[in-house]
């Protein structure tokens, strides 16, 4: 069997159900692959892990991947299972925020560690400063790992994923009517999330490309299976969670929301979505995320091979 190490972007949760499902259902075995799945965490940068040789392939968001590319880690997108972005800004309705124009003079929670790029890009397109609360600026907080800042009203808006944090807000007893959501997807600043990235030099090796093709193929089967069997998929995730902190209810719901982001079984990257992501990141105002249009940051070679069987 060929060994593949996959580094996830975040902790073990239904966001990665497809990979765990492929593992447990034996899809990887059928492709003659021995896959090791490394969970991530709040301070694990998958880009760093792959740069140091700790993984063959990583799940990463495109902004972080392109930024890493500029920083000297030549990452290439080989597949894009997630078609839509799940990121949004969730605000209390009673703060008077009804549209992005109302953001100034409010406090916004944002994820950092490479996830702040879409937000900064969006704000610069809106012409909103991010260095303090005033008439045309917002106060930005480095949001921690949970939704407490919103519940405790320390922030007027926080970043949430449709499949995870938003559900946690509702779990805390808040009703959807009390909230206003701004999906990045709707604001035209969506960036591609959860793609599979490898190091450019490895793609020279046909054996590696073949191994990745089999990996992508099996993974997509995993995703298909997970979408069809959300409860079982959630249970598989739970069994793989080494912290033992997840609950089945939460993972089942997450699986449902994740399914909405994987609109088709095609792992190929949509060039239009790619262009839009790059455009968003280049529009980062005074400090764009990436300064030059990336070249060769994605390839269809692997997905083509995967589809070819």
């Amino acid at each position: 069997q060929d060994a593949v190490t996959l580094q996830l972007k975040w902790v073990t949760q239904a966001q990665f159900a497809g990979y765990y499902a492929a593992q447990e259902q034996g899809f990887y075995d059928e492709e003659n692959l021995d896959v090791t799945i490394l969970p991530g965490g709040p301070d694990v940068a998958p880009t760093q892990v792959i740069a140091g040789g700790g993984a063959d392939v990583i799940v990463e968001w495109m902004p972080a991947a392109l930024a890493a590319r500029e920083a000297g880690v030549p990452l290439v997108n080989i597949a894009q299972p997630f078609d839509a972005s799940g990121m949004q800004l969730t605000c209390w309705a009673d703060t008077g925020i009804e549209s992005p124009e109302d953001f100034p003079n409010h406090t916004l929670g944002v994820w950092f560690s490479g996830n702040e790029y879409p937000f900064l890009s969006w704000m610069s397109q809106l012409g909103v400063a991010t260095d303090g609360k005033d008439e045309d600026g917002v106060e930005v907080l480095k949001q921690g790992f949970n939704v407490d800042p919103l519940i405790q009203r320390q922030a007027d808006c926080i970043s949430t994923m449709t499949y995870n944090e938003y559900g946690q807000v509702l779990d805390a007893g808040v009703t959807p009517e009390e909230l206003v959501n701004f999906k990045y997807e709707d604001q035209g600043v969506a960036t591609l999330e959860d793609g599979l990235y490898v190091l450019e030099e490895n793609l020279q090796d046909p054996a590696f490309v073949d191994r990745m093709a089999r990996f992508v193929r099996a993974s997509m089967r995993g995703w298909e299976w997970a979408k069809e069997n959300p409860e079982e998929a959630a249970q598989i995730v739970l069994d793989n969670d080494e912290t033992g902190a997840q609950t089945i209810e939460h993972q089942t719901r997450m699986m449902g929301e994740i399914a909405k982001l994987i609109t088709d079984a095609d792992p190929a990257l949509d060039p239009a979505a790619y262009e839009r992501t790059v455009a968003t990141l280049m529009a980062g105002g005074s400090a764009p995320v990436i300064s030059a249009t990336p070249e060769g940051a994605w390839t269809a070679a692997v997905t083509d091979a995967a589809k070819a069987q």
Partner: protein
Amino acid sequence: MRRAVLPVLWVVMALLALWYVAAIPMNIREVVTEAERGGAEVWGGTAAERQDRSAWALALRNPSVALNGWAQERPRLPAPHQVAQELYASTIGEEVFGRRGFFQTGELSNRSLVYHAGVTLGATVVGFLIGAAAGVLLAIGIVHNRAMDMSVMPWAVISQTIPIVALAPMIIVVMNSVGVQGLLPKAVISAYLSFFPVVVGMVKGLRAPDRMQLDQMHTWSATQAETLWKLRLPASVPYLFASLKIAIAAALVGTIVGELPVQRGGLGARMLAGSYYGQTTQIWAALLMAAVLAAFLVWLMGWLERRTLRAMGVPA
């Protein structure tokens, strides 16, 4: 015995009482909001307006719901009995009745704090042993070599002002990425934190023999090794144990910090997971478990110290 235990009991009870009292204002905002959502008439205006009111005012003016602060699902400050329940549920409860508990599967459940405490304990002990050994060796070098004393000692002090725990994620990830995984990266951090107190204590201890004792060795033409083995090391034992007690507590902190970024079990991972899902009670339970572990480790050092000293013939 009674003289020793009773005051501790009083203090613990006072702390518990304080804790219960504090839980009311700490949780009152959520309690009131919840009541409001349930359709109750509450004092204090809208949720946003209530933000500006004092917690005690809210508690006193909404007396019918104030005590709900002791039974919140996601409290800011869980009441002591909630923590106790969680502690029970995630130890005995989980292992005995849980789907993956010890009684079902013959293995410790990864949902139980017993399992996580074990993971943390392993890395702590390994890290502590590495750190203590390195510390003792470095101290021996420093005592015997002036160049080492003068060049290393100032940097050892400075090294402790480096926020190593802030480096922990990077160390973990970097080690991870060169293929070192699991227990060792965490142990490296706990070793780093535990080596310094050992160096300081051991340098002091190895230098504890006075001029007279060293001269005595000299008149007998003892070699450096003999002096080390028969004089310096035995003389340093009390200092060694004093610093080992500090070192093992530091090692535990190091492990827990090392467990935060990589969600692979351990009390640190557990605390973070609790934080990630807003499960304050779970954090508190993990914290308490860590405290018990710390107390146990420090006690263990004390016990070893007493055993060693007794074996050496020093009066209790």
